[in-house]
């Protein structure tokens, strides 16, 4: 046997199954037999979980309820969960922008465009790199891996000034799409790391079967391995998209025109020097959150696999 393939056949099979989504849900988790647990314990467990769930969901619910309240009602100093006179006015204000001051659609368009472009560029650069790192031994590989490990931890604050100056010199400051360059690049190390985990889970024999069947190295990558890691690619794409969708610091520092803002910075427009328009802010927040939420519910299972290298099932 060659030294480079330590995993046993059964491992490879399980992993292959996992990649193709075949793996059944994990066996029943270990649980002490019901009889050994008292009713009191069970009630306590549920109580803790219910309280925690409430605490975790409440801030979002509060935003939901508030978005249907008038600003006057929001600023009421008595606790009032549900709007007494529910109104859609906040949503109308956001979506139609009657005062031409808060171009929500421009922000959404910018955010979507930036996030989408980040996703496309990020994935198309990260994908082949992750494949190479997963499959080949080559001179400099350790260096590349180490450099990714380090850059993965660079905070935005570190690159803030130099990127700000670089973008200024290139005349890119203020253009939302210039952010794509920064976003796609800064999320690359992590994208590669995640994608590599997905590739690692695909048995190398499939590459070899492809080679023997008549494919070149690119053909193997593009026609065999890429189709097999579509969930992984989707997760990396989602990760890139979300990163760009949520990024605040660089957007806040680099964007100036009201119409060129992305959503996070745009929404900040409702926080004025002299107060906050909570009605619009909550409504807009909710509008921003819902699509992300739907995507997230789908992606989170795979996301964990990607983050933890398959050592953990979601």
């Amino acid at each position, binding site marked *: 046997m060659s030294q480079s393939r330590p995993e046993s056949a059964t491992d490879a099979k399980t992993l292959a199954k996992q990649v193709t989504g075949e793996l059944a849900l994990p066996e029943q988790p270990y649980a002490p037999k019901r009889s050994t647990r008292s009713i009191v314990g069970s009630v306590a467990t549920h109580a803790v979980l219910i309280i925690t769930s409430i605490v975790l969901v409440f801030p979002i619910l509060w935003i939901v309820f508030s978005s249907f309240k008038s600003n006057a009602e929001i600023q009421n100093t008595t606790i009032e969960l549900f709007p007494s006179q529910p109104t859609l006015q906040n949503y109308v204000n956001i979506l139609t922008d009657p005062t031409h001051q808060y171009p929500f659609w421009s922000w959404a368009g910018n955010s979507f465009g930036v996030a989408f472009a980040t996703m496309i560029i990020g994935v198309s650069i990260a994908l082949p790199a992750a494949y190479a790192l997963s499959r080949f031994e080559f001179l400099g590989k350790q260096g590349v891996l180490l450099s990714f490990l380090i850059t993965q931890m660079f905070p935005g604050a570190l690159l803030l000034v130099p990127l700000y100056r670089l973008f200024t010199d290139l005349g890119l400051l203020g253009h939302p799409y210039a952010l794509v360059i920064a976003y796609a690049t800064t999320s690359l190390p992590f994208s590669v790391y995640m994608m590599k985990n997905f590739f690692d889970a695909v048995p190398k024999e499939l590459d070899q079967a492809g080679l023997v069947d008549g494919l070149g190295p690119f053909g193997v990558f593009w026609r065999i391995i890429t189709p097999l890691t579509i969930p992984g690619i989707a997760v990396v794409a989602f990760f890139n998209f979300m990163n760009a969708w949520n990024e605040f610091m660089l957007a806040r520092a680099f964007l100036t025109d009201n119409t060129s803002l992305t959503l996070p910075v745009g929404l900040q427009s409702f926080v004025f020097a*002299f107060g906050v328009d909570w009605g619009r802010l909550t409504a807009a927040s909710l509008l921003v959150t819902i699509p992300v939420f739907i995507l997230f519910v789908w992606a989170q299972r795979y996301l964990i696999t990607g983050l933890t290298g398959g050592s953990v099932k979601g």
Partner: protein
Amino acid sequence: MNKRFFIAIGALASLLVMVLSGCGGSGGSSGPVTIKYWYTEGAQEAVVITQLISKFEQQNPNIKVDAQLVDFASAHDKFATAAQNGTAPDVLRADVGWNTEFAANKYLYDITKYVSASDKSDYLQAPLAYATYQGKLYGLPQVTDFLVLYYNKKVLSSAGITAAPKTWSDFDAANKKLTTGGKFGWAWEGSSYFSQPFIFSFGGGLFDTSTNPPTPIINNAGSVAGLNFLKQELAYAPKIDFQNGYTNAVKAFQTGQAAMLMNGPWEYTNILTGSAFSDPTNLGVAAVPMDQATGDVARSPAGGQNYIMYAGTKHPDEAYKFMSFMSSEASQVAIANANKTLPTRQSAYNDSAMASNTAVKSFAALLPTQKARPVIPQGGQIYATVTGFDPNLQKFLTGQEDAQTAANNIADGFKKLVAGS
């Protein structure tokens, strides 16, 4: 390599081109010139501004105004960012404090040549001074403002207070009477800018601009006395949430929870939307109280806004046309009538259309209490956290530092600020 791959790459590339051209494709074409304008008014104040802009566009079919709202709090650094990059608006409504700073940084277009002597002499002297740097004109004053004492007439009279407090001891006495049963004598906004009436009225100040560089006097005896008095009177105000101090204070006054408030003319129309002022005549306007010992000195911080033009503008003539339209007598009157803010032109005060504007008249009467702001290049940053003004004030108010220490720290911050380090 196979066909599918190239198709994918091609699609990707064309997508990128489409996406990127979306942001680079504007401008450059002939036809009407587009002027980008950033305004910083709040939603209510901005109504008249947008009306004026469409009027301007009607009168000048060759000039389009791309008017964008930029929040006042972030307008300063957004303009600075955009100015360095060439994407700044042609015209900006800027706080008077920023005018000198931007001019000193060479971000601004010298408009001296456009303004005739007669036009210049129509502007009030104090606001015009803020637009002037090293003898050149860098902006046109839009509004001037200062703080006044708003009071709830009904509440005061029912507490047996017949007139608005003239001195701080009146103010203190009134607070003692008014603060009962969940109600407060006054509400305070909780930020450095609003501490100035106290600092100034006891003989203190921010800078002594007669020296070069200007010397901080925020830590002189008068300033410290003012700060101590402020803290003492906060016993009669609702607890301050520093992040939301401004709105909370205004709201407390609007709803009758607090009987007095120090704020500017810009807030007048908004205050009237409050439940305590469904009868507008219930709102009283008086001068900021004075310290008996110091006397009737200028004690209310002067503020205001100017129209300024970006040095990198490609259309200075059109931009100036727009600026001058916005600060014309007619426009100033329209703004004053809509927002009850103070015009910067002599002629505007004498305009017949202003006759019924009692609010502006009552503000104008208090103009002598206005204390000019130091015209220094760093003027725009005096109230920014960088100087430590707000941070140290907060430390003082929350009992972490005594007034003198806080004031000394602020003075150190001011020193660093003017030294430019």
